[in-house]
């Protein structure tokens, strides 16, 4: 007697729905905390009141032209002008970097791969170094610290640098046969970009150097309210693009020859994956500076929590977890006890590294 298919129960080893709801709830909580906490703490009741007035006023003005808006409190400006863009930037950067890291880890079948692997963030750094440091050297400090440089100029320079490296990698990926060579080439490009950046730093003035170092520490508060829609749309496009690749990514997990036999064009697919991952990294590095560790840590946490390698589940899971972790890091970086913000880069590593260590030591249990 052979059992029918009904006797074979396919069970997920992790309660997926429960974990997903938990992640989203934590995300919402962290988001509100991001808006309330900082150098000025806003009581939750005031926060709710302010939100209520804002929503009521914007709805009522549509229906009633005579409506008298509530006088905005001081809290209103802090929440909506300063903290909201920062929180949304953190959330988007978390999503994009984590998804980008997942793509790299799957493509190169290497758990240590992350968005900076192919030298794309080093390209961004070089771009910023060229603009900020050279402008500083030739035009004086005034030019390099102009408000213009701190927003569009720096972002544009970083994006151009990152994108040039990305194009170089894409061109090389069509020439190189093995993924290992591609990684090596990426690491070498990162070294070259890094040393050129260092040389530029060596020759620049102290004051100019300072603004470059600040950029390198990473920050979620550089995206202005006007830039936010552009940033949000590009990150979302990249993330949706990554999701559309989930079949290819799942097949690549089996190994290249199996994937090829199952209809994957290896060369074209790896170029697509590099393009999507590199695009996300380039955009986010341009606006937030090089943010370390999120892209490495979050995919591991997602795999561990959901006990799965299925990208159909893993890509959304990684995106939401990346959002949570980035919001958490942003919160820590702006703890009330610190007058100025901590560098996001050190906070992400400080929080990310122990989590990865914990995941590694608990992995044995999962594999049983």
């Amino acid at each position, binding site marked *: 007697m052979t059992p029918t*298919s009904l006797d074979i129960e396919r069970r997920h080893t992790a309660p997926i729905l429960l974990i997903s709801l938990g992640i989203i709830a934590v995300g919402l909580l962290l988001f509100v905390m991001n808006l309330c906490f900082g150098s000025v703490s806003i009581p939750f009741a005031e926060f709710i009141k302010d939100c209520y007035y804002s929503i009521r006023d914007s709805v009522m003005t549509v229906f009633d032209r005579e409506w008298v808006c509530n006088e905005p409190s001081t809290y209103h400006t802090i929440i909506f002008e300063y903290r909201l863009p920062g929180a949304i930037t953190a959330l988007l950067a978390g999503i994009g970097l984590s998804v980008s890291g997942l793509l790299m880890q799957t493509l190169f079948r290497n758990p240590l791969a992350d968005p900076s692997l192919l030298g794309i963030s080093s390209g961004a750094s070089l771009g910023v170094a060229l603009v900020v440091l050279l402008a500083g050297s030739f035009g004086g400090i005034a030019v390099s610290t102009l408000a213009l440089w701190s927003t569009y100029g720096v972002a544009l320079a970083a994006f151009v640098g990152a994108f040039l490296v990305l194009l170089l990698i894409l061109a090389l990926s069509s020439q190189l046969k093995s993924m290992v060579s591609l990684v090596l080439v990426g690491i070498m490009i990162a070294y070259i970009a890094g040393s050129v950046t260092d040389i530029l730093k060596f020759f620049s003035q102290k004051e100019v150097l300072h603004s470059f170092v600040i950029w390198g520490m990473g920050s979620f508060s550089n995206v202005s309210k006007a830039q936010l829609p552009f940033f949000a749309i590009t990150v979302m496009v990249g993330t949706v693009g990554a999701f559309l690749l989930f079949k290819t990514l*799942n097949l690549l997990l*089996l*190994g290249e020859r*199996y994937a*090829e*036999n199952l*209809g994957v064009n290896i060369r074209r697919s790896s170029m697509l994956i590099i393009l999507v991952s590199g695009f996300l990294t380039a955009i986010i590095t341009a606006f937030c500076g090089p943010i370390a560790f999120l892209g490495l840590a979050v995919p591991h946490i997602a795999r561990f929590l959901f006990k*799965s390698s299925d990208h159909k589940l893993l890509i959304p899971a990684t995106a939401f977890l990346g959002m949570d972790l980035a919001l958490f890091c942003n919160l820590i970086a702006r703890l009330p006890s610190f007058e100025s913000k901590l560098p996001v880069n050190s906070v992400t590593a400080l929080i990310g590294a122990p989590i990865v260590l914990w995941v590694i030591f608990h*992995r044995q249990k999962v594999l049983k």
Partner: protein
Amino acid sequence: MNEVLHTTDLLIGYKGQALMPEINVSLNEGDIVALAGPNGSGKTTLFKTLSASIKPIGGEVSLFGKKLQDYHPSERSSLFSLVLTEKPDDLFLKVFDIVAAGRYPHLGLLARLKAEDEQIIYDSLETVGISHLVNRNFVSLSDGEQQKVMIAKALVQDTPLIFMDEPAAFLDYPSKIELVNIMHKLSREKHKTILFSSHDLDLLLRHADVMWVVAPQQPLRQGTPKELVDQGIIDAYFKPIEAKKEFFWMNRE
């Protein structure tokens, strides 16, 4: 008998250097064919050529009456499937996920499994006898169990032809017998054509319907295992290289 694959003056090798004289062989539907030869005799190269991983340096392979190169890669995925020695090593990859991936060529953009697809997956797991492992992590399985998962994946792919590269290489004796049984089941009940390779004179070879024997720079010889033994070809092709070296320690006593 229906012909599945045949080669015409096929030359295999790398960089224009042929590994053996022209190959003219054919595969018939439902046959279990063993490709046997010592290491370094060109088995893997022939395998890769027949499965379109590398191009022939001369002659051609035709699959179901059409040249292999003329098929689009996505068409090939429904004609032949692979069982390889390289294995997935991702820690969280589940048996179900691997077998389901074999179904991808038949699925749409979102890879949603229909009831029919799930049925095929479960039937395949049943056929190779691993339905109890469906929720397990692939890396936690034994070599024999992993082999069966990859065979189930090939079955789900639903191709008339299955290539198995060294399927017995890492298996212990009971697993080899199980493998022989599975291969018989696939060929006799499901009319699959199976081409597998082996680098030593394994028990599997006795169960092949047809054997292709290769040795470095020797022509490929085709026949039933019995014919090839009777003609002394097995002896000639295997003995000088493998047997003497491997059993050298026995002669010392």
